[in-house]
């Protein structure tokens, strides 16, 4: 399962990761080897095996739709790189 440098660039784009041009060949090599390694799963006979959904066969617990947390926006925004008037700022999206 040899990936090409272009495959790696397209995966990096899907993952929204900037990879330096000089690092592409190392990632191509590493990721190809990881995919080769996990390829041995192909040989496993899984006919009639249901894919695991949860190790304890539990289903998702639900709760009543009630407000249980109070507003702490100011506190949480102390960790934000850039805010203004309670809003998170990002570069202009629409020209």
């Amino acid at each position, binding site marked *: 399962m040899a990936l090409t440098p272009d495959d790696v660039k397209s995966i990096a784009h899907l993952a929204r990761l900037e990879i330096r041009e000089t690092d592409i060949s190392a990632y191509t090599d590493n990721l190809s080897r990881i995919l080769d390694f996990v390829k*041995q*799963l192909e040989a496993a006979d899984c006919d009639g095996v249901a894919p*695991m959904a949860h190790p*304890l066969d539990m289903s998702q617990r639900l709760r009543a739709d009630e407000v249980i947390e109070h507003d702490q926006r100011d506190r949480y925004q102390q960790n934000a790189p850039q805010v203004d008037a309670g809003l998170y700022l990002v570069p202009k999206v629409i020209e």
Partner: protein
Amino acid sequence: MHTKTIAELSKLLAAGEVSSEELTRSYLERIRKHQPALNAFITVTEDDALEAAKEADLLRKNGQAGALTGIPIAQKDIFCTDGVKTSCGSKMLDNFIAPYDATVVERMKRAGTVMLGKTNMDEFAMGSSNETSFYGSVKNPWDVTKVPGGSSGGSSAAMAARLAAGTTGTDTGGSIRQPAALTNLTGFKPTYGRVSRYGMIAFASSLDQAGTITATVEDAAMLLNVIAGFDERDSTCVNEPVPDYTATLDADIRGLKIGVPKEFFDDGLDDKVAQCVRDALTVYESMGATLVDVSLPNLGLSVPTYYVVAPAECSSNLSRFDGVRFGYRCENPVSLEDLYKRSRGEGFGAEVKRRIMTGTYVLSAGYYDAYYLKAQKTRELIKEDFCRAFENVDVLMGPTTPTAAFGIGEKSDDPITMYLNDIYVNGANLAGVPGMSVPMGFVDGLPVGLQIIGNYFAEAKMLNVAHRYQQETDWHTKLPKGFE
């Protein structure tokens, strides 16, 4: 004082022979002395620790102390701590001050423990050597040229050097048991869902579980008593009663059936480690246990299964780090896409990026069935192997790691070699069963661990079985040179 266990310190505190403030000061002094050589901590919370210690002493004076009141501990830096930097070993969160406590932290605080600081770890818990930390590698106190294991390598190094009385860890694919084995400690990973993951920074949510790294099994039981149990805020946390894990530690183990999976003794296992396992099993036989040959035929699939499931979940979990609401943001982004890509590209280290990309690939259109769906099926096969084995035996035993601690830098160039180091530990995470490692001897001067795996929610049984071993052996009492 630092050579005392939590159980011993608890008695000394209760008898008034030492105060929490004195204890806390002495551990802080040890941290100051050994941190430069070991790099076990990312953050030391000296002022908060002294304040908490004084509070603990006051509680004791007022007759409100419990078994853990005033015990100085360290938290892995993956647990959110209100008002304290929580980095997860990453540049991405180097500036992150958690706005709330993880449930594990909250419960340990409520029990009166004193947090000394936050321990180093592989970045986002992805690693088996603590070499992927943004804050630099951690050194093994048994030999500073060796790794302390990972990802909870800061906790294992801190505990091995006795820079805290107890530490926490998390175990997604062996990250508690493997470092404990490489540093002569007791590492305990409970059943999936036994301990709340709320406030524990997510890596692979269907595998992640919190636990402890301590000097003894008894100490693990004391900490588990506090951290185990239902929590509404973690939707995967199981609502099962928590027994007093210390109450059954001394129970008789005559008649215990120990399953010994033949797959644990493969070609990759170091002969000397194999001999240590056989010696440990002989000790158990002398205590009246019976050994039963068992097979986990699909165990060989566990590492490749793990390296599909864990990266897939990590790629999803780590998409939250986008440079917008918290964490690292690149300088002068020209567009939103540029902001995302450069913040993530610069904020994450190489191993994290490798796993995000592996996960992105196996989940991408056209490949999902071949990789992720297939891995969830092989995962089911691995789980069924464990369930079948537990129909006939009480616990499984084998090595925790194929070798003793390897050298810093020795395996960091080759991800596959590094991944295979976890060959015996990945299985318990995939099946969701509890696993632990206890000291079982030394190979060329370096400690190695005996792995004990139990059935779902068999924590009390495992702790009992392991505690009895520590009554018969003294491996766990050995300390590295220079830290006695």
